[in-house]
């Protein structure tokens, strides 16, 4: 398999310049992703040129995160950015199309952005060994 990829950690301040540079080199925006870490959100911008993937990464604090929008450089980024706002509670400044938090209507506001960080060892029904006897049935059938 030939899934070439590079990963570069950059400071947030240089994001716009770097993205501009990517655009100038003819890269295509593949995705903007975020991962919720205990205290931070890890942002990854992926670009593609002729099937090789270049990732730019930076971290922002989980609370009160603010990043600039790159929708002036890559117009299609507004979807990713609105999604980031609605799921991670990241304020994206200057989006070309701003849904103002109405991109997804979720039962839980900012599902990935709650102040309680996901536990390092999440205990879920599926993986936790249960006392012998009964197995769990989530939500008893009526």
């Amino acid at each position: 398999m030939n899934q070439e990829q590079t990963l570069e950690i950059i400071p947030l301040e240089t994001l716009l310049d770097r993205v501009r540079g990517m655009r100038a080199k003819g890269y295509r925006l593949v995705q903007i992703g975020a991962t919720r870490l205990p205290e931070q959100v890890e942002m990854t911008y992926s670009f593609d040129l002729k099937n090789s993937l270049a990732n730019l990464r930076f971290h922002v604090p989980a609370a009160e995160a603010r990043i600039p929008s790159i929708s002036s450089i890559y117009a299609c980024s507004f979807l990713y950015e609105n999604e980031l706002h609605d799921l991670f509670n990241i304020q994206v400044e200057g989006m070309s199309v701003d849904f103002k938090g109405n991109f997804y209507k979720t039962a839980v506001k900012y599902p990935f952005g709650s102040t309680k960080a996901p536990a390092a060892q999440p205990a879920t029904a599926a993986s936790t060994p249960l006392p012998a006897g009964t197995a769990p049935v989530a939500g008893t059938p009526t």
Partner: protein
Amino acid sequence: LGYMREYHESAHPEVADRRPAFFALLFIFMGAMFGLIFSNNLVWLFLFWEITTVCSFLLIGYTRTQEARQNALKALVMNLAGGFAFALAIVWFHYKSGSIELQTLIHTSDKAVVLLPAALLCFAGITKSAQLPFSSWLLGAMVAPTPVSALLHSSTMVKAGVYLVLRLAPVVTGTTVGLLVGIVGGITFVIASLAAITSSDAKRVLAWSTIGNLGLIVLCGGIGTAAAVWAGILLIVFHAVAKCLLFLCVGAVEHKLHSRDIEDMSGLVMNMPRLGVMMLIGMAGMFLAPFGMLISKWAVLKAVVDASPLLSVFVVFGSSATLFFWVKWMGKLLQVTSPPQRVHKELVLGETIALYGLALATFLTCLFFPLISSRFIVPFVVGVYGHGASLGDGNLLIMTIMMGFILLFPLAFLNYGRGVKVVDAYLGGANLQGGLRFTGSANQVQDVALQNYYLHSVLDEGWLSRWGVLCCAVLLATMILQACL
């Protein structure tokens, strides 16, 4: 010429408001019209003709705005061109035959003598009735107060033109001049009907529709057979009544809503029920089956097919276009997109009398159509041609049955709203409770708005009128030339 009386009666009741000067002008206008109709002497006719021209100039320019003046001037120039042709015709005819009697003109059998004056008179008639090369003055005249528009359109001024053309019909029938006049009328009918589709200004739509219907009358005049003339006169009568009603309605609506945009009339039957219903009657009168206009169109179609079937193509295409803009307007009145807001004091007394009278007249002219036809019109046609025309009696019976259907329609409302459950309109499942609203993009509440089609992607008013003007101008030039040679 008894029919003209009847037709004037219907035009009278609307002149019940506004100021003395205005009233005086209108009065002169009316007087001139009477004169026009009853005079047989060409010179007198010419005099009255020019009086109406001047009156209309003054009436259009009544509001004294820049636009009004411009349009008034335009009307004056165009009508004077027609007047000039009129004068020329009189001179020429006098020179040739020594007579200035209209009757002589009509009954002179020597086609060579009468053809040119007839052609010139037709030309005058065409300018006056705002046929295509000259249609812009009538559209411009829409700046005038509504009763003026009503007067100009439905009852007098423009009718003077077609009246003249119809009077001349026996002369031109079967000649190339007649054919060309007919084609000009036909093209005008089609173009005007299409142009009316593209407009959302109520008065402009009415203006185009008037031009179109006059075109139809001119077409009849051009064909000039007994049946055609009979049909043309029917058209004049029914058109006068229904159009007058519509103009006054639009005027009243404009007075209340401060807009004459058709889009703003949405839900009028709910907001201003009486006016809305009057307007619907007027429109039904303009094109729906059992009403007068349709009877006359039917007659026109038959007459045209009998005389020269090829010309029927204009009638056929034109009337289908007519259908489109009337129905969408009717639909707009019926449609309710926002909660109804009743407008209080819809009409003042004078208006009420005028509107009710006219609405009643729309029905009555239709119901008593055979009577009108046999009492007033047929004698005239017989007088000219020696025989008359009519629709089959059986058909009239059926028309009456259809009329019965229409009259029964309000009865259906006796059962209004019983046994039904009212739910919101289908909005793709995104509707909000009550009213025509839905959850739109970004969870914003959106109101549904509905705008009629104007077919701008296939029809363009400017393009249509340019080509129409060009075609008709060429045809008219050919006509005059043809008559000269």
